[in-house]
Each structure stands twice: as C-alpha cells, then as structure tokens.
C-alpha cells in the first residue's frame, strides 16, 4: 500500500500525528499517475514529464494540519472553472479557455486546504454521455478492466479515484454522471440534493438538474468532501439557505430501526441478472444491520428517461448557445457572422453535443413546446411527487445504480438509445432533486464492480451517509483495489 492508496481521513490522521507530510502524499499520487495514467487516461492535458504533478495551489502546501482537508489532493472535472487554469469541458469549442474566476466549490476547497490538481479529469464533452467516450481527448479506461468504459460523464474523476491517481475527486451529476461512473469503477460517488452545492462555476449542461458532488474511496471521505463544498452561495440563487449538518457525525449512527424502500420499478426488464443478485445480497446485509425493508412503488419511473432527455436537452441547447466563437474558445474565421457561427460550432462540437442541441432546439420550438417541454415538466412534477409520497413511509430507497456493469469501449457509441438507458436508475433523482449515493456492493464473476444506489429525501444526505457507512463498516468491497 502506498500513501495514494489510503483514504483522506486516514491520511489526515497521519498528517495530524506528523507521521507523513502533505508533500509525500502529492509525490505518491504523482508516482501512481506516472505509472498508470498512460493506460487509464483519467486526466486531460496532463504534463507527464512533470514530477510531482502540477497543482493549482502548490504554494499553499503547509506542514500544519488545521483545516479540514489540509494537504489532501483533489482532482477536478474539466467542467468546473479554475481561475487561470484551462477548463475546456473536454470540448474543442472551449479550446484554450482559462476562466478568470474560480467556481465556488474551488474557492471552498482552497479554503479547506485541499491541494487542487491542475490537470482536470476526463469527461464526456459537456457531460453529455455515460461512458466518457464523447471526450475530445478520447475515452478513459476502467481501472478494473481496461477494455471497458469508466462510465460517465465523470469517468475521469471516478477512474482517478479508483486507480489512486488522486485521493478525492469532484464530479458533476445531471442524470447519473457521478453515480454511474462511481458504480462502474467501484468507488463512492454522491449527487447531493439540488440546491445543496453551489453550481457557480460549473459549466452548465442542464441547469435545473446539474449538481456538483464528491467522489471518494469510501463513504467517510465522501462525507468529508461534501462537508467542504456544501452550503448556500449568494452567487447561486438556486442554493438553499439552510445550515449544513455535520456529516461526519452522521456516520456514527447505526441503522437499526430505519425503513428502507425497495422500488419494484428498479428490478425489472433489462437489468443484468448478476447485478440483480448482488444488489439483493446487499439489501439482505442492510436487513441484517437492523433496517426494515419495505417494497414500494414509484409509478412514474418509466417516464424518467424520456422526460429527462426532453428537459436536459432543452436546457442544454440554451446553455450551449453562448459558444459562438465571438469571445473565447475556438473560432473559425469566415466571411460573415452567420458562417463564422456555423463553422465554429460545426467544428467545435462533437456528434453527441450536436445531437442534443438539435433535440433541445426542437422541443423548445414554437408549436412543439407544449407537446414536449411543458408536458415533460408536468410529468417531472409527478415523478417528484412519487418520491414525496414514498418518503412518508421510508427513510431512503435502495436500488441498483446501473442495470449493468461497465460495458466495453465502443460497444454503445453507435447506439445512443442503448447508451441513454445506462442511466435509467439514476435519472429520477435528478428530476426529483433528491440526493443519491452510489457505492460498491460486490463484483461480478468478471471482477467488475456492482453499484448500490441509495436515494434519500431532499436535504437528508445524512441518512445516505449513515446507511452507506454502516454497510461499509460490515463489508470489505470498498477496500478492493483494481489490478494495475
């Protein structure tokens, strides 16, 4: 075991007793990056000749251990703005874009003493995808099986944590983009409640669904990272001004007497039998730990994917309108303005981005708005109500994170619908705005991780940490390392 293989909370205790220092941690992950990054491709624009790896705030590395994340390296997804450091959403259109400002989460991480890696993590272009294959830098490979995808869109963040190329990572989740890659790479990832973490500085995909969240090796680390980034931000009007609870304290509680709902809609057609079996075993484990298991219904679940692909693409088509070659990023000169727009956007955006812009433009068009966008919003309200109703009776819900384990690179690139279904179990939480966490609950015969998703009430991330941590305290899955 190297230092890079340890968790943040473990490293923090070693730092506190001065057994190690922050530089050693950075050196350790740099060594790991040097060793495995060529095979994984978790990062983009990484200068592999540099040792240790470049960080954004190296100068702040201290020997003290006063702040909550002092000395802990954190990797950042390429869609989160870092002042003066390239932030390109893995898209050609943002080529060379250095934001003049930090995202709020970056400010908070800096204040907490975290060491932020300058190379960003790979992702599907603009977070449009479920495999990180839609990156202009090429796909990230799954540390457990390099012929498989890492999931997406935060595939780089999940793979980097899994391969111990970082201690912690930040991702973003619009329809499962943290949880599904966390599931595929065997790590922990959480999408917090909509409004819990500031989106200021997150390059928007779908504003009403996006949420920044943590990826980590275990639940404890995940709680630690959320603790740092959560909270009201006057720069983001959609954050809620309520106190952030002490998530570490929530880890202490056992789960005796809590009620866990199992929504039947999540265990039907399309789900891999092995995944199903392993998830049921995890549910048995939770039962053993004292939780009451209750079968429940979320009636409108089967509308989630179509509703999501209307709302998300509509918002995306609007959010991506600003990439026009006028002010920053790629510009292809042309004889007139309209042609400059077309050439720039034609070259700058990848196929999936174009597909979604077209879809989104269509559903917002005059004459179609009512039939698609407005209807989708109404169904979204019903999906949200499903959750409100069920949370009157249960404390949280447990489901598989994804219907399958990591699929082969290239397997679904030519079948967008198949690809979209990979998020079938994660999308509802975004539509309802509720928090959800994914953690590893076992491995298939092929040694691929299986993910367990726990969905909670709005602003009750504590319950998710409590259940997930209790599970990890009695299992060993999260301690397994990929064969690198």
């Amino acid at each position: 075991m190297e230092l890079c293989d340890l968790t943040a909370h473990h490293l923090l205790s070693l730092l506190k007793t001065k057994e190690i220092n922050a530089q050693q941690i950075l050196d350790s992950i740099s060594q790991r990056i040097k060793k495995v990054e060529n095979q994984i491709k978790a990062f983009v624009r990484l200068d592999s000749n540099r040792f240790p790896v470049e960080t954004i705030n190296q100068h702040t590395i201290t020997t003290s251990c006063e702040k909550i994340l002092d000395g802990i390296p954190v990797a950042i997804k390429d869609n989160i703005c870092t002042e003066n450091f390239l932030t390109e959403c893995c898209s050609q259109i943002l080529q060379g874009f250095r934001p003049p400002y930090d995202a709020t989460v970056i400010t908070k991480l800096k204040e907490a003493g975290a060491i932020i890696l300058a190379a960003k993590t790979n992702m599907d272009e603009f977070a449009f995808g479920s495999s990180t294959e839609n990156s202009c830098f090429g796909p990230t490979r799954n540390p457990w099986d390099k012929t498989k995808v890492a999931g997406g869109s935060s595939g780089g963040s999940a793979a980097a944590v899994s391969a111990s190329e970082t201690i912690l990572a930040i991702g973003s989740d619009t329809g499962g983009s943290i949880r599904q890659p966390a599931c595929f790479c065997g790590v922990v990832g959480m999408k917090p409640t909509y409004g819990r973490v500031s989106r200021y500085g997150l390059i928007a995909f779908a504003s009403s669904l996006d949420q920044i969240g943590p990826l980590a090796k275990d639940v404890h680390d995940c709680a630690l990272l959320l603790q740092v980034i959560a909270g009201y931000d006057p720069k983001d009007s959609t954050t809620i001004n309520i106190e952030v609870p002490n998530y570490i304290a929530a880890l202490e509680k056992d789960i005796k007497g809590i009620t866990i709902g199992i929504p039947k809609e999540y265990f039907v057609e399309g789900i891999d039998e092995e995944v199903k079996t392993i998830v049921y075993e995890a549910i048995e484990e939770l039962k053993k730990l004292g939780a009451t298991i209750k079968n429940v219904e979320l009636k409108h679940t089967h509308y989630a994917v179509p509703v999501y692909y209307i709302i998300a693409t509509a918002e995306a088509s609007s959010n991506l309108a600003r990439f026009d070659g006028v002010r920053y990023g790629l510009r292809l000169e042309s004889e007139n303005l309209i042609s400059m727009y077309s050439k720039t956007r034609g070259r700058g955006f990848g196929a999936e981005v174009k597909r979604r812009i077209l879809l989104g433009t269509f559903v917002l068009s005059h004459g179609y708005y009512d039939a698609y966008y407005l209807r989708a919003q109404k169904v979204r309200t019903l999906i949200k109500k499903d959750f409100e109703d069920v949370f009157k009776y249960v404390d949280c819900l447990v489901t598989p994170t994804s219907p399958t384990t990591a699929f082969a690179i290239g397997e679904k690139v030519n079948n967008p619908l198949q690809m979209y279904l990979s998020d079938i179990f994660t999308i509802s939480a975004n539509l309802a705005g509720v928090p959800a966490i994914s953690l590893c609950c076992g491995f298939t015969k092929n040694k691929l991780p299986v993910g367990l998703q726990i969905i909670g009430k709005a602003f009750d991330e504590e319950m998710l940490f409590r259940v997930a941590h209790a599970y990890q305290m009695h299992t060993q899955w999260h301690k397994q390392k990929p064969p690198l």
Partner: protein
Amino acid sequence: MNINIQYEPVIGLEVHVQLKTQTKIFCGCRTDFGAPANSQICPVCLGLPGVLPVLNKIALKYAIKVGLALNCSIGELIRFDRKHYYYPDLPKNFQISQYELPVAKNGYLEISGNGNVKKIGIRRAHLEEDAGKLIHTNELTFIDYNRTGIPLLEIVTEPDIFSPEEAYEYLTTLKGIISYLDVSDCDMEKGSLRCDANISLRPKWTKQLGVKTEIKNLNSFKAVRDALTFEIKRQKELLEAEETIEQETRLWDEKKQRTFAMRSKEEAKDYRYFPEPDIPPVIITNQLLDEIRASIPELPKARMERFMREFNLNYADARQLTLEKNIADYAEERLKAYPKKDKKTVANWLIGPLTQEANQRGKNLSEIPVSADALCELIDLVENAKISNLAAKSVLTEMIDTGKNALTIVKEKNLIQISDESTLTKEVEQVLQENPQIILEYKKGKTNSIMFLVGQVMKKTNGKANPKLVQDMLRRRLENA
C-alpha cells in the same frame, strides 16, 4: 378604388426604459453612462461559461413601482424566461426576459389632449437585461459590453392609440410619471428610453385590426410622431391602391423623413422562450407591495390638479409646470415664495422668459440658478412699474449670467423705468412727427397701430419708458389732435 373609405390608424407602443440602479440586473457591475468601453463588465454579464445570474432586488422594486403607478396588477409570482437569438452583442445568445409571468400587467395610463382625458391600456411591463453595443469601423466590429445587463423595463401598450399626437402625448406623460418615480433618466439621446411603434390602419367601421408594421430606430418623441404620420400616409396609399401591406419591421430615417423596410427580410422569429432555470420564481408579498406603494410620490396628474387648486393656475400652465418632476419642484418653490395670492404672474415668468433662458442654454428649467427670492424681487420691480417688461428680460439674463440680484443690475445699468410724463414728452412728440402714416391709420379706426408708436418710443428710451404711460400719452395726443 376604395377611395371613399375612411381609415383609422391603430397604434401600440413598446417602450424600453433603462432603470437607474447602481448595479446591473444580474451582477454587481456599475451602470454609469459613458464609461470607457468594457470597463464595467464581469464574468456574469459577459455570460462566461459557468456563471449564474442573481436578481437585483432594487431593479425589481423599481419595476413594481412603475407597474403600480401605471395602475397595473402586480404578479403574485413573477418568473424570468430565456429569449433566444444569436447576436454578438448578446453574450449568452439568449436574453433573460419575462414571458408568461411579467412584473405587471393590465394597467392604464391617462393622457389628455385639449383637456380631454383618455385611458391608454398597458398590456404588460416586464424586466429584462439590456444587450451590449456594436461599434463598426470600416474593417472591424468592436463590442462594448458595458450596457450588457443594465436593467430594462419594457412597457407595452394595448392598441389603444389612434393618432400620432396621442402617441406623442402618451410618451410625454409616461416619461413624466417615470421621472416622478425617480427610477430612470428617460433620456432618449442616451438611450435610457427607447420606443418601437406598431401601426396598422383599418376602415373606420370595423374593429378588426389590419396588417401592422413595426417601426424602429425612433430617437425622439418627435421622431415617433413624424414616423407614425409618414407610416399612416404610406399605408393609406397602399390600401387605396388595393395593394397589400407587408407585416414587417421598418426603420425610420430621420434625414429622409420616411420609413424603410429593413434590408434583410427577417425570418419568422422563434425565440424558444422557456423558464430561466437559474433564477427561482419570485413571490411578491403584500408587505413588499405596501412598502413600494408608500414610496410612490405625488404623481404628475395629482400635482397638476393641486397646482390648479392651490395656485389658481389654468390647466395648460399647471400641466406644463408639473409634467417633469424637477421642473415641478422648481416651480412649486417659486410659486409658494411669491406673496400675492394670484400666482399667474410667476407661472408666466416660469413658462415664458425662464424657460426660454433654459432652452437657449440647452438646460433644463430646473438648472437655471434664479432663486425664489431673486425671482420675486424681479417680479416686484415689474409689478411696481420700476422697470419695464422688456428691461426685466434683460435683467433676468444678467442675473443668470452674473448671479447678481435684480435691483443691483437695475441700478448699475440705470434701467429704472421712466414714469414721469414730462421726461417723455419730447420722445412722444418726435415719434408722432416721424410717423404721419400711422396716425392716419389710427384715425381711420385701426387703433391697434398705436402699439407701433409705443414701440418706437420704447426704442428711443432704450426700453426704459413705462409703456403703459407712453400708450396713455399717445392716445391723449391722438384723440385731441
């Protein structure tokens, strides 16, 4: 030929008012006019990737204030929407505006022409962000984003306006109200008030609206009036020739005094409005409404009525003096300071010589530095026949230029009016001798011609003679001769 059909113009106006908040509508940038290009910008108003808008509460309050003053109902829940179109002065390629749930709707504004009062319906008033400004040179185009994100209130009327004069009256009245509310400079030259006009004609016997055109590039109230007059004529000629009117946007050409169809014919626009997900809907509480209602001052109409009542002014004078808030404040102070009950004299001075002085200096009346006391002193000198009206006007000019008081100037320039008959006899006799023709006219019954003789005497005395006395003396001489 339909030559005998009487047509009626139907006009609706869209006015954009820049609200004079200290900072922009969705960020903390300043809004100063005339700042160096791109000196008042930040990631948010530049729409850089990842930024989020935060609503300026003052802009919202100002908008509600205008809404209330225009007798609108204020939405209990208001929402922002995105309006999409590509243009380099719009950094996000969508404008944050309001579509379904505007700040205010269903109000009216009372205008009066020749003393008749008419209500113009206000369909809606909504908040939105302004765009930047393109600066074209021969080879390049530059963009100044200072204006991007300045709060705008778009005020849209019902098609209730039936003549260019009514349109002019509406704009003047609206500007007056907004100046009273102190929420905008309403300066068309600086672009803080902009107006687009929609106009169609219909035969007088129907209520059904005809095909309309939208006129843009209107840079003054007068331009609005002239452009509408032109457009009525143009549309009427087309209709009479049984030609079709294109629904289109036309630009007013101030030099050529005519409208032109915009060169590139616009495609049917689809703005793809949808609710702005980054700004949660705002609930307008009764408490906020009460607070804003309490901050609305006496408005032009109420003040005009009070001026008529308190100062005994006629409608026209009271209206002219109350249209703009700073003028009304200026006038009220001076009207109040004048000790006599009949304030007509003061009003005449304000509307006459003082306004002329202001116009000549390219200033607003309220900027003319003649204090209430100084004005009273000047009026007294005239009233007590110490100086003539003519002399008083030059004294006023001197007062403004030098800051001296009237009496000092009168003494320095030896302007005391000559009210002594014996001193004036010589000039009167001279004038009579020089103008036998006029005397003949007078005797034939053209008694008004005496005024010419008065003028001649005034001229000879450098304006110092008491004109009333001169007229008296002349009349006596002419009757007795």
